[in-house]
Protein backbone atom coordinates (compact mmCIF):
# COMPACT_ATOMS: atom_id res chain seq x y z
CA UNK A 1 0.00 0.00 0.00
CA UNK A 2 2.64 2.45 1.09
CA UNK A 3 4.73 1.35 -1.83
CA UNK A 4 2.03 2.12 -4.39
CA UNK A 5 1.43 5.47 -2.80
CA UNK A 6 5.11 6.30 -3.07
CA UNK A 7 5.25 5.22 -6.67
CA UNK A 8 2.19 7.27 -7.49
CA UNK A 9 3.68 10.30 -5.79
CA UNK A 10 6.85 9.89 -7.77
CA UNK A 11 4.90 9.41 -10.97
CA UNK A 12 2.86 12.50 -10.48
CA UNK A 13 5.75 14.71 -9.49
CA UNK A 14 7.61 13.59 -12.62
CA UNK A 15 4.54 14.33 -14.72
CA UNK A 16 4.00 17.74 -13.18
CA UNK A 17 7.64 18.64 -13.67
CA UNK A 18 7.47 17.69 -17.34
CA UNK A 19 4.19 19.51 -17.81
CA UNK A 20 5.77 22.65 -16.39
CA UNK A 21 8.68 22.39 -18.82
CA UNK A 22 6.25 22.02 -21.70
CA UNK A 23 4.14 24.94 -20.55
CA UNK A 24 6.67 27.42 -19.20
CA UNK A 25 7.83 28.90 -22.52
CA UNK A 26 4.25 29.28 -23.67
CA UNK A 27 3.39 31.03 -20.44
CA UNK A 28 6.40 33.32 -20.81
CA UNK A 29 4.96 34.41 -24.14
CA UNK A 30 1.54 35.08 -22.68
CA UNK A 31 2.98 36.97 -19.71
CA UNK A 32 5.25 39.06 -21.93
CA UNK A 33 2.31 39.99 -24.11
CA UNK A 34 0.82 41.80 -21.12
CA UNK A 35 3.94 43.80 -20.36
CA UNK A 36 4.84 47.23 -21.60
CA UNK A 37 8.18 47.84 -23.23
CA UNK A 38 9.84 49.16 -20.09
CA UNK A 39 9.09 45.94 -18.21
CA UNK A 40 10.30 43.80 -21.10
CA UNK A 41 13.51 45.72 -21.62
CA UNK A 42 14.20 45.62 -17.90
CA UNK A 43 15.05 41.96 -18.29
CA UNK A 44 13.84 40.72 -14.91
CA UNK A 45 11.62 37.68 -15.32
CA UNK A 46 8.20 38.39 -13.90
CA UNK A 47 6.02 35.31 -14.11
CA UNK A 48 2.79 36.48 -12.59
CA UNK A 49 2.93 39.61 -10.51
CA UNK A 50 3.34 42.70 -12.58
CA UNK A 51 1.14 45.49 -13.79
CA UNK A 52 -0.52 43.97 -16.82
CA UNK A 53 -1.29 46.22 -19.74
CA UNK A 54 -3.53 45.66 -22.72
CA UNK A 55 -1.51 48.19 -24.71
CA UNK A 56 0.05 45.53 -26.94
CA UNK A 57 -3.25 43.90 -27.79
CA UNK A 58 -4.83 47.27 -28.36
CA UNK A 59 -2.05 48.16 -30.78
CA UNK A 60 -2.16 45.00 -32.85
CA UNK A 61 -5.93 44.85 -32.91
CA UNK A 62 -6.41 48.45 -33.97
CA UNK A 63 -3.28 49.45 -35.86
CA UNK A 64 -1.66 46.21 -36.89
CA UNK A 65 -4.07 45.12 -39.63
CA UNK A 66 -4.79 42.11 -37.47
CA UNK A 67 -8.30 41.74 -38.81
CA UNK A 68 -6.95 41.45 -42.34
CA UNK A 69 -4.37 38.82 -41.37
CA UNK A 70 -6.94 36.90 -39.37
CA UNK A 71 -9.45 36.90 -42.20
CA UNK A 72 -6.81 35.68 -44.62
CA UNK A 73 -5.63 32.94 -42.29
CA UNK A 74 -9.18 31.75 -41.75
CA UNK A 75 -10.01 31.81 -45.45
CA UNK A 76 -6.90 29.87 -46.40
CA UNK A 77 -7.23 27.49 -43.47
CA UNK A 78 -10.89 26.69 -44.02
CA UNK A 79 -10.74 26.54 -47.81
CA UNK A 80 -7.69 24.31 -47.94
CA UNK A 81 -9.12 22.06 -45.22
CA UNK A 82 -12.43 21.56 -46.99
CA UNK A 83 -10.81 20.89 -50.35
CA UNK A 84 -8.24 18.57 -48.82
CA UNK A 85 -10.87 16.55 -47.01
CA UNK A 86 -13.07 16.26 -50.06
CA UNK A 87 -10.36 15.31 -52.55
CA UNK A 88 -8.43 13.28 -49.99
CA UNK A 89 -11.58 11.47 -48.94
CA UNK A 90 -12.37 10.51 -52.53
CA UNK A 91 -8.87 9.32 -53.17
CA UNK A 92 -8.54 7.38 -49.95
CA UNK A 93 -11.87 5.73 -50.59
CA UNK A 94 -10.79 4.57 -54.02
CA UNK A 95 -7.50 3.27 -52.67
CA UNK A 96 -9.14 1.45 -49.80
CA UNK A 97 -12.17 0.04 -51.54
CA UNK A 98 -11.86 -0.02 -55.28
CA UNK A 99 -9.70 -2.05 -57.61
CA UNK A 100 -7.97 -0.26 -60.44
CA UNK A 101 -4.80 -0.32 -62.42
CA UNK A 102 -2.01 1.65 -60.80
CA UNK A 103 -3.43 1.32 -57.33
CA UNK A 104 -0.27 -0.10 -55.82
CA UNK A 105 1.89 2.56 -57.44
CA UNK A 106 -0.43 5.24 -56.18
CA UNK A 107 -0.42 3.85 -52.66
CA UNK A 108 3.35 3.81 -52.58
CA UNK A 109 4.00 7.20 -54.10
CA UNK A 110 1.46 9.09 -52.02
CA UNK A 111 3.61 8.79 -48.95
CA UNK A 112 6.76 9.62 -50.83
CA UNK A 113 5.48 13.00 -51.95
CA UNK A 114 4.38 13.77 -48.43
CA UNK A 115 8.01 14.29 -47.53
CA UNK A 116 8.76 17.09 -50.03
CA UNK A 117 10.48 19.82 -47.95
CA UNK A 118 8.84 23.27 -47.99
CA UNK A 119 12.24 24.81 -48.76
CA UNK A 120 12.23 22.93 -52.06
CA UNK A 121 8.83 24.39 -52.88
CA UNK A 122 9.89 27.95 -52.09
CA UNK A 123 11.88 28.81 -55.22
CA UNK A 124 9.53 27.08 -57.71
CA UNK A 125 6.53 28.68 -56.05
CA UNK A 126 8.24 32.01 -56.44
CA UNK A 127 8.98 31.18 -60.08
CA UNK A 128 5.35 30.23 -60.61
CA UNK A 129 4.25 33.58 -59.27
CA UNK A 130 6.61 35.61 -61.44
CA UNK A 131 5.83 33.54 -64.53
CA UNK A 132 2.09 33.71 -64.28
CA UNK A 133 1.75 37.05 -62.53
CA UNK A 134 -0.75 35.41 -60.19
CA UNK A 135 0.39 36.76 -56.89
CA UNK A 136 -1.10 38.08 -53.72
CA UNK A 137 -3.93 35.71 -54.32
CA UNK A 138 -5.19 33.56 -51.50
CA UNK A 139 -6.20 30.92 -54.05
CA UNK A 140 -2.55 30.22 -54.86
CA UNK A 141 -1.68 29.73 -51.22
CA UNK A 142 -4.76 27.57 -50.71
CA UNK A 143 -3.73 25.44 -53.65
CA UNK A 144 -0.22 24.85 -52.30
CA UNK A 145 -1.48 24.06 -48.81
CA UNK A 146 -3.98 21.61 -50.26
CA UNK A 147 -1.19 19.90 -52.18
CA UNK A 148 1.03 19.82 -49.09
CA UNK A 149 -1.70 18.29 -46.97
CA UNK A 150 -3.30 15.86 -49.40
CA UNK A 151 -0.82 12.99 -49.11
CA UNK A 152 -1.08 12.90 -45.34
CA UNK A 153 -4.86 13.25 -45.41
CA UNK A 154 -5.15 10.39 -47.91
CA UNK A 155 -2.91 8.26 -45.77
CA UNK A 156 -4.86 9.00 -42.63
CA UNK A 157 -8.31 8.57 -44.14
CA UNK A 158 -7.23 5.35 -45.82
CA UNK A 159 -6.64 3.87 -42.38
CA UNK A 160 -10.06 4.93 -41.20
CA UNK A 161 -11.81 3.46 -44.26
CA UNK A 162 -10.07 0.19 -43.63
CA UNK A 163 -11.65 0.00 -40.20
CA UNK A 164 -15.18 0.17 -41.54
CA UNK A 165 -16.70 -3.25 -42.25
CA UNK A 166 -17.32 -3.87 -45.94
CA UNK A 167 -20.70 -5.45 -45.30
CA UNK A 168 -22.41 -2.08 -44.91
CA UNK A 169 -21.42 -0.99 -48.38
CA UNK A 170 -22.21 -4.33 -49.90
CA UNK A 171 -25.74 -4.07 -48.62
CA UNK A 172 -26.07 -0.62 -50.16
CA UNK A 173 -24.61 -1.80 -53.45
CA UNK A 174 -27.05 -4.64 -53.60
CA UNK A 175 -29.76 -2.01 -53.20
CA UNK A 176 -28.35 -0.34 -56.31
CA UNK A 177 -26.39 2.55 -54.81
CA UNK A 178 -23.73 4.23 -56.95
CA UNK A 179 -20.20 4.72 -55.63
CA UNK A 180 -20.92 8.40 -54.95
CA UNK A 181 -24.00 7.49 -52.96
CA UNK A 182 -22.03 4.92 -51.02
CA UNK A 183 -19.34 7.51 -50.36
CA UNK A 184 -21.64 10.23 -49.06
CA UNK A 185 -24.60 8.37 -47.62
CA UNK A 186 -23.14 5.19 -46.21
CA UNK A 187 -19.50 5.90 -45.40
CA UNK A 188 -19.46 9.62 -44.60
CA UNK A 189 -21.41 9.32 -41.33
CA UNK A 190 -19.03 6.57 -40.23
CA UNK A 191 -15.95 8.57 -41.11
CA UNK A 192 -16.57 11.68 -39.00
CA UNK A 193 -13.83 10.96 -36.49
CA UNK A 194 -11.37 10.30 -39.32
CA UNK A 195 -12.31 13.56 -40.99
CA UNK A 196 -11.98 15.36 -37.67
CA UNK A 197 -8.39 14.16 -37.28
CA UNK A 198 -7.53 15.05 -40.85
CA UNK A 199 -9.19 18.46 -40.51
CA UNK A 200 -7.18 19.35 -37.42
CA UNK A 201 -3.87 18.48 -39.06
CA UNK A 202 -4.73 20.20 -42.31
CA UNK A 203 -5.94 23.35 -40.68
CA UNK A 204 -2.95 23.44 -38.38
CA UNK A 205 -0.50 23.43 -41.28
CA UNK A 206 -2.38 26.19 -43.07
CA UNK A 207 -2.60 28.20 -39.87
CA UNK A 208 1.04 27.87 -38.84
CA UNK A 209 2.92 27.74 -42.12
CA UNK A 210 5.33 30.60 -42.70
CA UNK A 211 7.75 30.19 -45.61
CA UNK A 212 5.29 29.76 -48.46
CA UNK A 213 2.98 32.33 -46.96
CA UNK A 214 5.83 34.81 -46.80
CA UNK A 215 6.64 34.32 -50.47
CA UNK A 216 3.16 34.02 -51.88
CA UNK A 217 1.25 36.74 -50.09
CA UNK A 218 1.19 40.44 -50.75
CA UNK A 219 0.06 43.48 -48.86
CA UNK A 220 -3.57 42.46 -48.70
CA UNK A 221 -3.20 38.70 -48.38
CA UNK A 222 -0.70 38.18 -45.56
CA UNK A 223 -1.54 35.51 -43.06
CA UNK A 224 -1.03 35.71 -39.30
CA UNK A 225 2.47 34.20 -39.04
CA UNK A 226 3.71 36.56 -41.74
CA UNK A 227 2.06 39.44 -39.93
CA UNK A 228 3.70 38.39 -36.67
CA UNK A 229 7.14 38.25 -38.24
CA UNK A 230 6.49 41.82 -39.38
CA UNK A 231 7.04 42.92 -35.79
CA UNK A 232 10.68 41.96 -36.10
CA UNK A 233 11.47 45.48 -37.20
CA UNK A 234 14.73 47.19 -37.83
CA UNK A 235 14.45 49.18 -34.66
CA UNK A 236 14.58 45.91 -32.77
CA UNK A 237 11.91 43.41 -31.94
CA UNK A 238 8.80 44.86 -30.35
CA UNK A 239 8.59 42.00 -27.89
CA UNK A 240 5.33 42.92 -26.21
CA UNK A 241 3.48 43.27 -29.48
CA UNK A 242 5.00 40.26 -31.14
CA UNK A 243 4.20 38.12 -28.12
CA UNK A 244 0.63 39.38 -28.14
CA UNK A 245 0.41 38.40 -31.79
CA UNK A 246 1.99 35.03 -30.97
CA UNK A 247 -0.52 34.46 -28.19
CA UNK A 248 -3.41 35.15 -30.52
CA UNK A 249 -1.96 32.83 -33.15
CA UNK A 250 -1.55 30.04 -30.64
CA UNK A 251 -5.09 30.19 -29.29
CA UNK A 252 -6.84 28.07 -31.97
CA UNK A 253 -4.26 25.25 -31.94
CA UNK A 254 -4.40 25.20 -28.14
CA UNK A 255 -8.17 24.98 -28.22
CA UNK A 256 -7.93 22.10 -30.67
CA UNK A 257 -5.51 20.39 -28.37
CA UNK A 258 -7.75 20.65 -25.36
CA UNK A 259 -10.90 19.57 -27.13
CA UNK A 260 -9.45 17.00 -29.49
CA UNK A 261 -6.28 15.69 -27.88
CA UNK A 262 -7.31 12.11 -28.58
CA UNK A 263 -7.76 12.78 -32.29
CA UNK A 264 -4.44 14.57 -32.48
CA UNK A 265 -2.64 11.70 -30.84
CA UNK A 266 -4.41 9.32 -33.20
CA UNK A 267 -3.16 11.34 -36.14
CA UNK A 268 0.38 11.55 -34.85
CA UNK A 269 0.71 7.90 -34.09
CA UNK A 270 -1.13 6.79 -37.22
CA UNK A 271 2.04 6.52 -39.25
CA UNK A 272 4.16 4.66 -36.81
CA UNK A 273 1.91 2.56 -34.65
CA UNK A 274 -0.80 1.26 -36.94
CA UNK A 275 1.60 0.23 -39.67
Amino acid at each position, binding site marked *: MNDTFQRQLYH*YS*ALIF*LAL*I*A*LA*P*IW*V*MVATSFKDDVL*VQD*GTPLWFFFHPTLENYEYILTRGKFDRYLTNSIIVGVASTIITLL*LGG*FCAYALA*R*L*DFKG*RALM*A*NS*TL*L*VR*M*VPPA*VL*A*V*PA*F*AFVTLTGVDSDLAVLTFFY*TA*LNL*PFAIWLLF*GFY*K*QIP*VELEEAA*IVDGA*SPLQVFFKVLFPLMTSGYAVAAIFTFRIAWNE*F*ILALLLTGRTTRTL*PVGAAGFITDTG*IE*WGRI*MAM*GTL*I*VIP*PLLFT*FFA*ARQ*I*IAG*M*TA*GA*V*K*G
Partner: protein
Amino acid sequence: MTVLTQSRKPRFAAETMTPYTFITPAILVILGGLLYPVFMAFYLSFYDWEIGRDLAKAPFMGVDNFVRMVQDPQVWEVLWVTLRFGFWTITIEMTLGVALALLLEKPIRGASFFRTIFILPLMVSPVVVGLIWRYLFDARIGWINYYLGAFFGIEPQVWLGDADLAFFAIVFTDIWQWTPFIFIIVIAGLQALPSEVVEASTIDGANWYQQVFLVKLPMIKSILVIALLMRLIDVFRGLEVMLIMTGGGPGRATELLSLHIYNRAFDTQQLGYASAISVLLILIVFAISTAILTMANPMKSKSDV
Protein backbone atom coordinates in the same frame (compact mmCIF):
# COMPACT_ATOMS: atom_id res chain seq x y z
CA MET B 1 -7.64 -2.69 -39.75
CA THR B 2 -8.11 -6.38 -39.55
CA VAL B 3 -6.70 -8.77 -42.08
CA LEU B 4 -10.15 -10.04 -42.80
CA THR B 5 -11.55 -6.81 -44.18
CA GLN B 6 -8.45 -6.11 -46.20
CA SER B 7 -8.93 -9.07 -48.43
CA ARG B 8 -12.44 -8.09 -49.46
CA LYS B 9 -13.53 -5.26 -51.66
CA PRO B 10 -17.09 -4.41 -52.58
CA ARG B 11 -17.74 -4.91 -56.28
CA PHE B 12 -19.65 -2.43 -58.34
CA ALA B 13 -21.15 -3.61 -61.58
CA ALA B 14 -18.84 -2.71 -64.49
CA GLU B 15 -17.65 0.65 -63.24
CA THR B 16 -14.05 0.78 -64.30
CA MET B 17 -14.07 4.55 -64.75
CA THR B 18 -15.27 5.31 -61.24
CA PRO B 19 -11.99 4.73 -59.38
CA TYR B 20 -10.29 7.20 -61.66
CA THR B 21 -12.91 9.88 -61.17
CA PHE B 22 -12.33 9.46 -57.46
CA ILE B 23 -8.58 9.78 -57.54
CA THR B 24 -8.02 12.21 -60.41
CA PRO B 25 -8.76 15.50 -58.59
CA ALA B 26 -6.36 14.64 -55.77
CA ILE B 27 -3.71 13.49 -58.23
CA LEU B 28 -4.00 16.70 -60.23
CA VAL B 29 -3.51 18.85 -57.14
CA ILE B 30 -0.53 16.80 -55.98
CA LEU B 31 0.97 16.91 -59.45
CA GLY B 32 0.55 20.65 -59.69
CA GLY B 33 1.38 21.58 -56.14
CA LEU B 34 4.16 19.16 -55.28
CA LEU B 35 5.56 17.36 -58.30
CA TYR B 36 5.58 20.33 -60.63
CA PRO B 37 7.60 22.38 -58.13
CA VAL B 38 10.04 19.51 -57.71
CA PHE B 39 10.34 19.34 -61.49
CA MET B 40 10.80 23.12 -61.59
CA ALA B 41 13.58 22.85 -59.03
CA PHE B 42 15.40 20.45 -61.34
CA TYR B 43 14.77 22.73 -64.30
CA LEU B 44 15.87 25.92 -62.55
CA SER B 45 19.02 24.27 -61.31
CA PHE B 46 20.38 24.49 -64.85
CA TYR B 47 19.85 28.25 -65.06
CA ASP B 48 21.27 31.38 -63.52
CA TRP B 49 18.17 33.21 -62.43
CA GLU B 50 17.65 36.04 -59.99
CA ILE B 51 14.63 37.83 -58.63
CA GLY B 52 13.41 40.63 -60.84
CA ARG B 53 14.84 39.18 -64.05
CA ASP B 54 12.76 37.55 -66.72
CA LEU B 55 13.09 33.79 -66.31
CA ALA B 56 12.96 33.34 -70.08
CA LYS B 57 16.13 35.40 -70.39
CA ALA B 58 18.02 33.60 -67.63
CA PRO B 59 21.28 32.18 -69.02
CA PHE B 60 21.52 28.42 -69.31
CA MET B 61 24.33 27.11 -67.12
CA GLY B 62 24.46 23.43 -67.95
CA VAL B 63 25.71 21.53 -64.93
CA ASP B 64 27.74 24.51 -63.66
CA ASN B 65 25.52 24.94 -60.64
CA PHE B 66 26.08 21.33 -59.67
CA VAL B 67 29.81 21.53 -60.19
CA ARG B 68 29.84 24.65 -58.05
CA MET B 69 27.77 22.90 -55.37
CA VAL B 70 30.10 19.93 -55.13
CA GLN B 71 33.07 22.27 -54.76
CA ASP B 72 31.31 24.69 -52.43
CA PRO B 73 32.63 24.25 -48.88
CA GLN B 74 29.61 26.12 -47.56
CA VAL B 75 27.24 23.45 -48.78
CA TRP B 76 29.26 20.77 -47.05
CA GLU B 77 29.48 22.92 -43.97
CA VAL B 78 25.69 23.29 -43.69
CA LEU B 79 25.23 19.61 -44.47
CA TRP B 80 27.56 18.86 -41.59
CA VAL B 81 25.63 21.27 -39.36
CA THR B 82 22.41 19.52 -40.36
CA LEU B 83 23.81 16.08 -39.61
CA ARG B 84 25.19 17.20 -36.26
CA PHE B 85 21.89 18.84 -35.44
CA GLY B 86 20.07 15.66 -36.44
CA PHE B 87 22.43 13.49 -34.39
CA TRP B 88 22.08 15.47 -31.17
CA THR B 89 18.39 16.24 -31.37
CA ILE B 90 17.35 12.74 -32.39
CA THR B 91 19.62 10.95 -29.93
CA ILE B 92 18.46 13.05 -27.02
CA GLU B 93 14.82 13.11 -28.06
CA MET B 94 14.73 9.33 -28.58
CA THR B 95 16.45 8.63 -25.27
CA LEU B 96 14.32 11.04 -23.30
CA GLY B 97 11.11 10.15 -25.10
CA VAL B 98 11.57 6.40 -24.65
CA ALA B 99 12.67 6.76 -21.05
CA LEU B 100 9.70 8.90 -20.17
CA ALA B 101 7.30 6.58 -21.96
CA LEU B 102 8.66 3.60 -20.04
CA LEU B 103 8.45 5.43 -16.74
CA LEU B 104 4.96 6.71 -17.31
CA GLU B 105 3.52 3.85 -19.26
CA LYS B 106 1.38 2.53 -16.39
CA PRO B 107 -2.14 3.82 -16.86
CA ILE B 108 -2.83 6.28 -14.06
CA ARG B 109 -5.57 8.70 -13.32
CA GLY B 110 -5.19 11.97 -15.24
CA ALA B 111 -2.91 10.44 -17.85
CA SER B 112 -4.91 11.91 -20.71
CA PHE B 113 -4.72 15.35 -19.14
CA PHE B 114 -0.95 15.19 -18.98
CA ARG B 115 -0.75 13.85 -22.50
CA THR B 116 -2.76 16.86 -23.65
CA ILE B 117 -0.27 19.17 -21.97
CA PHE B 118 2.66 17.33 -23.53
CA ILE B 119 1.46 17.77 -27.09
CA LEU B 120 1.03 21.53 -26.69
CA PRO B 121 4.59 22.35 -27.81
CA LEU B 122 3.93 20.38 -30.98
CA MET B 123 0.94 22.50 -31.83
CA VAL B 124 2.64 25.88 -31.52
CA SER B 125 3.48 27.54 -34.82
CA PRO B 126 7.19 27.26 -35.68
CA VAL B 127 7.39 31.03 -36.08
CA VAL B 128 6.09 31.48 -32.57
CA VAL B 129 8.43 28.80 -31.21
CA GLY B 130 11.34 30.65 -32.78
CA LEU B 131 10.19 33.94 -31.26
CA ILE B 132 9.66 32.57 -27.77
CA TRP B 133 13.08 30.96 -27.61
CA ARG B 134 14.81 33.89 -29.22
CA TYR B 135 13.42 35.95 -26.39
CA LEU B 136 14.39 33.43 -23.70
CA PHE B 137 17.94 33.12 -25.06
CA ASP B 138 18.37 36.87 -25.59
CA ALA B 139 21.70 38.02 -24.20
CA ARG B 140 20.41 41.22 -22.69
CA ILE B 141 16.84 40.61 -21.57
CA GLY B 142 16.57 36.83 -21.87
CA TRP B 143 15.25 34.84 -18.94
CA ILE B 144 17.76 32.06 -19.31
CA ASN B 145 20.68 34.36 -18.64
CA TYR B 146 18.83 35.85 -15.72
CA TYR B 147 18.21 32.53 -13.98
CA LEU B 148 21.65 31.16 -14.73
CA GLY B 149 23.01 34.27 -13.07
CA ALA B 150 20.58 34.25 -10.15
CA PHE B 151 20.90 30.56 -9.28
CA PHE B 152 24.35 29.56 -10.44
CA GLY B 153 26.20 32.84 -10.65
CA ILE B 154 26.95 32.22 -14.31
CA GLU B 155 27.98 35.27 -16.31
CA PRO B 156 25.46 36.33 -18.97
CA GLN B 157 26.16 34.43 -22.16
CA VAL B 158 25.62 35.61 -25.70
CA TRP B 159 23.62 32.50 -26.55
CA LEU B 160 22.71 33.26 -30.10
CA GLY B 161 25.97 34.99 -30.96
CA ASP B 162 28.45 32.23 -30.23
CA ALA B 163 28.76 29.33 -32.64
CA ASP B 164 28.62 26.56 -30.03
CA LEU B 165 26.07 28.20 -27.78
CA ALA B 166 23.76 29.05 -30.66
CA PHE B 167 23.97 25.47 -31.87
CA PHE B 168 23.13 24.32 -28.37
CA ALA B 169 20.21 26.75 -28.29
CA ILE B 170 18.58 25.40 -31.44
CA VAL B 171 19.14 21.81 -30.30
CA PHE B 172 17.57 22.65 -26.97
CA THR B 173 14.58 24.30 -28.62
CA ASP B 174 14.07 21.32 -30.89
CA ILE B 175 14.22 18.95 -27.94
CA TRP B 176 11.62 21.01 -26.12
CA GLN B 177 9.30 20.87 -29.06
CA TRP B 178 9.77 17.34 -30.33
CA THR B 179 10.49 15.05 -27.39
CA PRO B 180 6.74 14.83 -26.74
CA PHE B 181 6.29 13.45 -30.25
CA ILE B 182 8.57 10.49 -29.53
CA PHE B 183 6.98 10.09 -26.13
CA ILE B 184 3.45 9.93 -27.53
CA ILE B 185 4.36 7.48 -30.26
CA VAL B 186 6.31 5.17 -27.98
CA ILE B 187 3.69 5.16 -25.29
CA ALA B 188 1.02 4.32 -27.86
CA GLY B 189 3.23 1.49 -29.08
CA LEU B 190 3.83 0.19 -25.58
CA GLN B 191 0.17 0.21 -24.72
CA ALA B 192 -0.63 -1.68 -27.89
CA LEU B 193 1.65 -4.54 -26.84
CA PRO B 194 -0.25 -7.74 -26.09
CA SER B 195 -0.38 -7.88 -22.31
CA GLU B 196 0.04 -11.66 -22.30
CA VAL B 197 3.61 -11.42 -23.52
CA VAL B 198 4.59 -8.92 -20.85
CA GLU B 199 2.82 -10.88 -18.17
CA ALA B 200 4.48 -14.08 -19.32
CA SER B 201 7.89 -12.51 -18.94
CA THR B 202 6.99 -11.35 -15.44
CA ILE B 203 5.99 -14.87 -14.50
CA ASP B 204 9.25 -16.14 -15.97
CA GLY B 205 10.98 -13.99 -13.38
CA ALA B 206 12.32 -11.26 -15.65
CA ASN B 207 13.24 -8.13 -13.72
CA TRP B 208 12.34 -4.62 -14.90
CA TYR B 209 15.49 -4.09 -16.95
CA GLN B 210 15.24 -7.46 -18.64
CA GLN B 211 11.62 -6.80 -19.38
CA VAL B 212 12.40 -3.45 -20.95
CA PHE B 213 15.45 -4.34 -22.96
CA LEU B 214 14.70 -7.94 -23.86
CA VAL B 215 10.93 -7.85 -24.26
CA LYS B 216 9.35 -4.45 -24.68
CA LEU B 217 11.86 -2.47 -26.73
CA PRO B 218 12.50 -5.26 -29.23
CA MET B 219 8.80 -5.61 -29.74
CA ILE B 220 8.35 -1.96 -30.61
CA LYS B 221 11.53 -1.83 -32.64
CA SER B 222 9.82 -0.96 -35.90
CA ILE B 223 7.91 1.87 -34.24
CA LEU B 224 11.16 3.26 -32.88
CA VAL B 225 12.87 3.12 -36.24
CA ILE B 226 9.96 4.81 -37.99
CA ALA B 227 9.79 7.55 -35.38
CA LEU B 228 13.52 8.06 -35.79
CA LEU B 229 13.32 8.30 -39.55
CA MET B 230 10.37 10.66 -39.39
CA ARG B 231 12.37 12.95 -37.14
CA LEU B 232 15.31 12.68 -39.49
CA ILE B 233 13.16 13.87 -42.35
CA ASP B 234 11.93 16.75 -40.21
CA VAL B 235 15.54 17.74 -39.60
CA PHE B 236 16.00 18.11 -43.33
CA ARG B 237 12.67 19.84 -43.78
CA GLY B 238 12.80 22.33 -40.95
CA LEU B 239 13.96 25.92 -41.26
CA GLU B 240 11.40 28.26 -39.77
CA VAL B 241 12.52 28.07 -36.15
CA MET B 242 16.16 28.77 -37.03
CA LEU B 243 15.19 31.45 -39.50
CA ILE B 244 13.48 33.36 -36.71
CA MET B 245 15.92 32.52 -33.90
CA THR B 246 19.28 33.08 -35.55
CA GLY B 247 18.80 33.39 -39.30
CA GLY B 248 21.49 30.70 -39.52
CA GLY B 249 24.21 32.62 -37.71
CA PRO B 250 26.60 33.28 -36.23
CA GLY B 251 28.48 32.37 -39.36
CA ARG B 252 26.74 29.23 -40.52
CA ALA B 253 26.67 27.63 -37.09
CA THR B 254 22.90 27.09 -37.10
CA GLU B 255 22.23 27.09 -40.83
CA LEU B 256 20.52 23.83 -41.69
CA LEU B 257 20.40 22.67 -45.29
CA SER B 258 16.83 23.90 -45.83
CA LEU B 259 17.64 27.30 -44.36
CA HIS B 260 20.75 27.50 -46.51
CA ILE B 261 18.61 27.00 -49.60
CA TYR B 262 16.24 29.69 -48.41
CA ASN B 263 19.07 32.14 -47.65
CA ARG B 264 20.77 31.41 -50.96
CA ALA B 265 17.57 32.03 -52.84
CA PHE B 266 16.20 35.05 -51.05
CA ASP B 267 19.16 36.64 -49.29
CA THR B 268 21.84 36.40 -51.93
CA GLN B 269 19.27 35.87 -54.70
CA GLN B 270 20.89 32.98 -56.51
CA LEU B 271 17.71 31.16 -57.36
CA GLY B 272 19.32 28.80 -59.85
CA TYR B 273 22.07 27.77 -57.51
CA ALA B 274 19.59 27.43 -54.66
CA SER B 275 17.61 25.07 -56.89
CA ALA B 276 20.68 22.93 -57.45
CA ILE B 277 21.06 22.56 -53.68
CA SER B 278 17.32 21.81 -53.54
CA VAL B 279 17.96 18.84 -55.81
CA LEU B 280 20.49 17.53 -53.31
CA LEU B 281 17.94 17.97 -50.55
CA ILE B 282 15.27 16.18 -52.55
CA LEU B 283 17.59 13.23 -53.09
CA ILE B 284 18.42 12.97 -49.39
CA VAL B 285 14.81 13.17 -48.29
CA PHE B 286 13.79 10.73 -51.00
CA ALA B 287 16.31 8.19 -49.72
CA ILE B 288 15.11 8.45 -46.13
CA SER B 289 11.47 8.26 -47.18
CA THR B 290 12.10 5.15 -49.22
CA ALA B 291 13.67 3.61 -46.15
CA ILE B 292 10.55 4.35 -44.13
CA LEU B 293 8.29 2.97 -46.80
CA THR B 294 10.14 -0.29 -47.13
CA MET B 295 9.84 -0.72 -43.39
CA ALA B 296 6.16 0.02 -43.17
CA ASN B 297 3.59 1.29 -45.56
CA PRO B 298 0.11 1.14 -44.10
CA MET B 299 -1.40 1.55 -47.54
CA LYS B 300 0.31 -1.45 -49.03
CA SER B 301 -1.89 -4.22 -47.72
CA LYS B 302 -0.68 -7.77 -48.00
CA SER B 303 -3.36 -8.70 -50.51
CA ASP B 304 -1.73 -6.45 -53.09
CA VAL B 305 1.46 -8.38 -53.37
